[in-house]
């Protein structure tokens, strides 16, 4: 009669002491969709590390007689206007697309994470100043910010990656800061301090492990988003010039040939599948938390 609530009472803030967290992780087998997503990401990373293993064709060598061939067994993704194998171009292009996204995420995690950590851990006026800086970065539309940064650095793919990373700093800083604040107020942190733990000890032993889960989660999500942003920049021509074959650039050059739609769809589908996989994995990580 008296108990209507069915939900178990939860600890405020949703934190768990680091010790519990390490031991009690779920060991269940991930669902099929997640396994597929991991396979897709592994495949793409494989393409970017060793493109030669996946295609025997030279992405730069065109056979004019074979121009505009539709997808077939010989050319999985068809051929372009110069008779170059589109699959080889996608595979070889993934090196720069995937690496750029990783660079962007790394910049976001390191710079944003540091900003958030310092803001949340030191607090007081440092927090106020850093939070305003983060507000500024959030106020400028991230794609516009990336365009401005890449135009300041020069039109190269690595600069596009840096620009994308800069535009992701704010998000990481915000998440890191809120995680740090959450943990800092926790009882086990108070206990650790009372037992004589130094601030450094608390930071390394409790705050960082607790924050790392959310940041990892965001990093996976941001990997997908970065691929989209970098593809967008390449599409507008702010990456490496044409002999390169970034996915965005492939779509951009493919769109000039409406009669050969595979030139747009092949790189587009690869991009979508990669981003979708990253999103799916990030969602799964969040759920198993």
């Amino acid at each position, binding site marked *: 009669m008296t108990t209507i609530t069915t939900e178990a009472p939860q600890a405020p803030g949703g934190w768990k002491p680091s010790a519990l967290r390490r031991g009690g992780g779920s060991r269940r087998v991930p669902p099929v969709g997640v396994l597929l997503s991991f396979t897709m990401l592994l495949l793409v990373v494989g393409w970017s590390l060793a493109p030669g293993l996946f295609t025997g064709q030279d992405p730069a060598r065109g056979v004019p007689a074979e121009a505009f061939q539709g997808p077939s067994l010989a050319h999985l993704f068809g051929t372009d206007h110069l008779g170059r194998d589109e699959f080889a171009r996608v595979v070889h292009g993934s090196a720069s697309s995937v690496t750029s996204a990783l660079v962007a995420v790394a910049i976001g995690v390191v710079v944003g994470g540091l900003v958030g950590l310092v803001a949340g851990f030191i607090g007081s006026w440092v927090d106020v100043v850093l939070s305003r800086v983060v507000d500024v970065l959030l106020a*400028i*539309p991230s794609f516009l*910010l990336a365009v401005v940064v890449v135009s300041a650095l020069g039109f190269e793919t690595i600069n596009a990656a840096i620009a994308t990373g800069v535009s992701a700093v704010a998000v990481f800083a915000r998440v890191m800061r809120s995680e740090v604040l959450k943990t800092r107020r926790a009882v086990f942190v108070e206990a650790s301090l009372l037992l004589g733990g130094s601030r450094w000890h608390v930071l390394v032993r409790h705050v960082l492990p607790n924050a790392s889960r959310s940041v990892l989660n965001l990093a996976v999500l941001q990997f997908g988003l970065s691929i989209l942003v970098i*593809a967008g920049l390449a599409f*507008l021509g702010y990456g490496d010039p044409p002999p390169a074959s970034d996915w965005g650039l492939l779509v951009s050059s493919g769109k000039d040939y409406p009669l050969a739609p595979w030139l747009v769809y092949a790189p587009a589908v690869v991009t979508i599948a990669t981003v*979708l996989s990253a999103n799916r994995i990030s969602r799964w990580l969040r759920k198993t938390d």
Partner: protein
Amino acid sequence: MTDTRSRRLVSRPYLTYALQRVVQAAVVVLLAYCFTFLVISVLPGDPVSNTLRNPENNFTEDEIARIIGYYGLDQPIHVQLWESLTRFLRLDLGVSLRSNLPVSRAISEVIGSTVVLALSALVVAVVLAFGVAYGVRNLPTPLARPLRALPSLFLSVPNFVIGLLLINVFAFQLGLFFVTDSEGGTATFFAAVALGIPVSAQIAEVLIANLDHESRQEYASFATSRGLSRSRLFWRHLLKPSSLPVVTVIALTVGELLGGALITETIFGRTGIGSLVQRAVTTQDLPVLQAVVVLAAVTFVVVNLVVDLVYPLLDPRVDLRGATKRVRPVTEAVPA
């Protein structure tokens, strides 16, 4: 006889909160200006020799000297920043290096098209998001399940791909509009769809998360046990508390709309802020670039400020007395 509402409007906590937010917003805009200025000043190459002395632009030596003096391009960087900032505070956005016309005029010539596009895209996004959310809650499971995955898919498609797809299907194959008539009604509609789809995903994700949360509340189970149908429950009880936080999310998507417009305008061949930025980037027209970024930041800050100020009035549950910085309900599906 003052009614409670007007008394709450002028209540002390609200005024303090409002004042704090306004000051914060102003600081953010000023800092955004400085930040952009500093980023842009790192630009390799000398804008003076690149642009002003370009024979195509037909500047006389007098004009060049005047522009250099105006921007203080011969001064150290902090002096330039100060000059530029004081001009900005007088609402002077400077002169385009490319056309020698005031930047404000270059912007006002094209801004209408972008505003129309962004607003239509927002309408498309909101309608789509509520449609998806309605379907997820009310359709039978076999239909609702794939619908639940739709926002995630929408978020994963590059918006230039959506644009190209729409043009290919509706312009080239069905002939519903002509790409040459880029500002026409139908063309604008499809451009708005291309821009609105990724934005709709963010709104839908939050809306669905809120609906799920509300449907687990006791009042919802009580209403169901009283015999209310699913759709009745949705319209009468779940929709209102779930869609209030969405207002905040919509304000946050302003940035996406402005950033995405860059690509959408290129694909649909529209003349707007996006094409202005593209031209400014390729010709290194720094004052234009600076002005557009600041304009975007101001738009974002003002929209979010208005939402933050109106929100406590819309939702009486928001308590400002304990609020120090920012009162924001759960607006993100991602726990951030």
